[in-house]
């Protein structure tokens, strides 16, 4: 079920090592199996900020500062894209103990 989890600000996303990445003509392309996605600039910033230690909130703050947008907007955008990455098997989430799974 897509997005069947609830992100917490202190959730830590980790890139899957099975995700293949290429930088071609300045754009980052990520792929799992035979499905490839070219990332927009802001999406690339989020993806490359995922290093297995940064929390969702820390990544959102980075996004907000880079683009000069409101923190809450950045949090929403980050959560939306991170959810998309999870649904497309490009990352995993280390859920904090306080996070709950949707429907649980």
């Amino acid at each position, binding site marked *: 079920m897509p997005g069947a989890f609830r992100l917490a600000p202190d959730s830590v996303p980790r*890139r899957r*090592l*099975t*995700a*293949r*990445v*290429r*930088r*071609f003509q*300045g754009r*980052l392309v990520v792929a799992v199996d035979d499905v490839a996605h070219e990332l927009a600039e802001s999406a690339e910033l989020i993806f*490359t900020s995922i*290093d*297995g230690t940064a929390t969702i909130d820390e990544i959102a703050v980075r996004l907000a500062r880079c683009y000069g947008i409101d923190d809450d907007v950045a949090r929403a955008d980050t959560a939306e894209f991170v959810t998309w990455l999870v649904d497309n098997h490009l990352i995993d989430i280390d859920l904090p103990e306080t996070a709950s799974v949707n429907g649980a």
Partner: protein
Amino acid sequence: MDAHVDYLGELTDRSLLPVNHCAVLLVGSCARGWSNSKSDYDIYVVSTEAWSSDTCDVLSLPLNPPTVLTESFYANGRRWEVTHWQDSQVDQMLAKVSWAEFERERTAGQVLSYKEEIFLDRLASCLALSGAEWLADRRATLAESAFRSFLVARSLDAADDSVEDALGQLDAGELESAVLAARKALGHTVDAVLEQHGEYGAHAPKWRPQRFRAAKPSALSFEEYWTLETMSTFDPADPAKWVNSVLTLCQDISMKVEI
């Protein structure tokens, strides 16, 4: 390059220098200044017409004409290997790595044979004993070609294969095989970084440290690279930790290397 060696004189004395040659190139470790007392002198002679001798060896290549000729001998305490190419063959090799070809087929191994790839590798780093103008012209064509992108893409593809292999071996509990696969992934990834900086020669991993120092890549320091290459942080009690750290680094670097 050994200043005391009369390369052109030696070739002339042995009748290995065609009158119609475009260039005579010292290639390989001697040209890079990396040679030792056991190193060969490798020389390419490029001519506008075919050259032959009664004692040469013939190498087959997917070119027209489909052969190049090599002559080997010992002089000045070293083994010499002189390979005769035709100018038209160089044209053909450069045409194989055009951007149009790159759009069609991105794997270097499928557009160039091993010997052809080494020729273009060495074209970028050789020394002209004769024909400096010819070399400058051909280097400019090589620089404008997709050769670099072909090699980077191939190394990254090979790295991906090794990463996938390592992860599969980890899942299966085959930790020793996972370590070896991770080492391969690292080698291919570092080669991609070096190729991005125009340091070719992935076919000879023994020169990787020298190529690394010459490239000075910002994506990875020499100290980081050498720590991994020599496995100095490897803990036999926890091989998976080392494997995962190497595979993570490979992915990090792949994000920085422009094809």
